[in-house]
């Protein structure tokens, strides 16, 4: 029966395709006049136009398809990726508290991004007219969403480079979600939920949006922009914008909110490392969208960014685990999971600028350096519960600096033939150092002021009794595990 239907379908397609041929065969061919020739030329021109339009459509389909996939991958990083990675690291009485922060931020930051965030980050032109922050160009998705052009009677479909601006807005919006979610690792298990919300709104608006604009929309840190500090920085996928900003702000949060009750005396072991390991694996997968997607289209450099992302994660996982093996006697699951994330953080700014071998080296260095950084925190006396600073702050800073060494024009000839990294004789390292310094200072000052505001209005911490009961019950009236 199925075969019969298929035969019928193939038959009707064949019959349909023969129709135009028969029609053209019936056209008179003996009266070839000048008008006919002109007509034929016009006809072939329109066919070329048609072919080019088809080619453009195919390009758009490829780029847009890839970028929408990447957009979904980056969302996947926040939850389930980060939610599970962080969720497993806390004690069982706080597992929902952490997962809730990630999920809630997916909603909250998206709404802010839609209303004004995208406009503050990417509004205004790239010519250096708005060096500090975007303008109101894209408020409420104006010039982002499709609109109707009455003059030409056609819809307007705003584009950003090779993709619809809607896609660009969505892709960048996922970064706006994950960045404050990363900070949650520092104040996990003790911050008030309402204060976390207020802090994230303020931080997203006054720290993330300007920083994003500085680096990625022709602002004071954008590479090669007029008036950029020390020539600007290379930051392919968010080493400064996402990881240094989140990591350094996380450190300040941990210091200002103070250590968890019972830190150093109570059992603070991760309650479920299986979540954490699987969450890390999800982050690794999602990071392909984060880094390779930051090319904002699909081409050869996308493949390069994808490759170095994977290599750095692999080297980071091995390096952290082996370093533990040598220094502590055993490789740990948490070590291999953290190492992969450290490698990924480190390669993020460099993803579009370095080749595979430097990527292996960068990942390995990040694995060892972040491992040491995390083990120092107890000696330094601050309680960054889930090591948001040790992994993202340190890994991001290391990555930004190493980008200044290893960046090569062979990957992205962004300076029009001039060498980039120190190892190929370039001078971008100065800009990298400057950008790291500016991002550190801006994040510290910004986060300090915002935390003071939150502290004065809502307070930062839950009560001591609530902290003891756990945030799942005290903040959400729920329990993560009901085992009968």
């Amino acid at each position, binding site marked *: 029966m199925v075969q019969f239907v298929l035969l019928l379908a193939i038959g009707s397609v064949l019959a349909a395709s023969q129709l135009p041929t028969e029609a053209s065969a019936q056209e008179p061919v003996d009266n070839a006049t000048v008008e006919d020739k002109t007509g034929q030329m016009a006809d072939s021109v329109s066919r070329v136009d048609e072919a080019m339009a088809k080619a453009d459509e195919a390009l758009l389909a490829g780029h847009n398809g890839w970028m929408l996939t990447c957009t979904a991958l980056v969302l996947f990083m926040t939850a389930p990726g980060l939610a599970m990675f962080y969720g497993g690291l806390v004690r069982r009485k706080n597992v929902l508290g952490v997962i809730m922060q990630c999920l809630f931020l997916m909603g909250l930051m998206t709404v802010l991004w839609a209303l004004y965030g995208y406009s503050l980050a990417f509004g205004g032109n790239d010519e250096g007219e708005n060096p500090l922050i975007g303008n109101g160009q894209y408020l409420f998705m104006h010039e982002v969403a499709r609109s109707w052009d009455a003059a030409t009677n056609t819809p307007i479909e705003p584009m950003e480079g090779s993709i619809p601006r809607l896609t660009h807005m969505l892709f960048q919006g996922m970064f706006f979600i994950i960045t404050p979610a990363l900070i949650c690792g520092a104040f996990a298990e003790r911050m008030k939920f309402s204060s976390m919300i207020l802090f994230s709104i303020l931080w997203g608006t006054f720290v993330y949006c300007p920083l994003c604009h500085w680096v990625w929309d022709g602002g004071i840190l954008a590479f090669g922009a007029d008036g950029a500090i020390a020539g600007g920085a290379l930051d392919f996928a968010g080493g400064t914008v996402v990881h240094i900003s989140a990591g350094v702000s996380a450190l300040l949060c941990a210091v200002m909110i103070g250590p968890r009750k019972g830190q150093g005396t109570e059992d*603070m072991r*991760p309650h479920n490392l299986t979540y954490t390991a699987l969450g890390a694996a999800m982050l690794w997968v999602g990071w392909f969208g984060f880094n390779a997607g930051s090319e904002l289209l699909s081409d050869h450099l996308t493949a390069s960014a994808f490759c170095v992302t994977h290599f750095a994660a692999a080297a980071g996982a091995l390096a952290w685990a082996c370093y533990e093996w040598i220094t502590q006697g055993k490789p*740990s699951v948490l070590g291999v999971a953290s190492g992969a994330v450290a490698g990924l953080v480190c390669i993020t700014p460099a993803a579009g600028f370095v080749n595979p071998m430097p990527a292996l080296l960068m990942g390995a260095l990040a694995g060892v350096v972040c491992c040491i950084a*995390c*083990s120092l925190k*107890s000696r330094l006396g601050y309680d960054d519960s889930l*090591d948001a600073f040790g992994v993202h702050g340190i890994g991001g800073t290391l990555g930004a600096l190493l980008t200044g060494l290893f960046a090569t024009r062979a990957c992205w000839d962004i300076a029009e033939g001039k060498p980039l990294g120190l190892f190929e004789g370039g001078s971008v390292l100065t800009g990298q150092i400057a950008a790291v310094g500016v991002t550190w200072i801006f994040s510290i000052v910004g986060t300090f002021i915002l935390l003071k505001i939150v502290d004065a209005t809502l307070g930062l911490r839950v009560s001591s009794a609530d902290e003891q009961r756990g945030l799942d019950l005290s903040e959400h009236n729920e329990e993560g595990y009901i085992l009968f």
Partner: protein
Amino acid sequence: MKKIEAIIRHFKLEDVKNALSEHGIAGMTITEVRGFGRQKGHSETYRGTEYAVDFVPKVKVEVAVSDDQLQAAIDTIIKAAQTGQIGDGKIFISELTESIRIRTGETGGEAL
């Protein structure tokens, strides 16, 4: 009647259960417990932070037996749960004043 509480190693549970069944002890209750005796705990390290874990996971088997079953049950448990290494566990015996089968209301030895 006596109540036997045996704290044993996880991997010995199946052996103990089978051995007690063979001796006609038809019911038991188990709980996953943590505790310490002579067996030292261990240390765990998470991102460089070390935790001393003193409480070692064990399984607690609770069995109610008649007085004449007691010695056989104790011998059976010891035989099945012993490895000879520190950490094999302990057996505690206590007096049991009553036992009642909820379905029928039977009491004493009838309810075991």
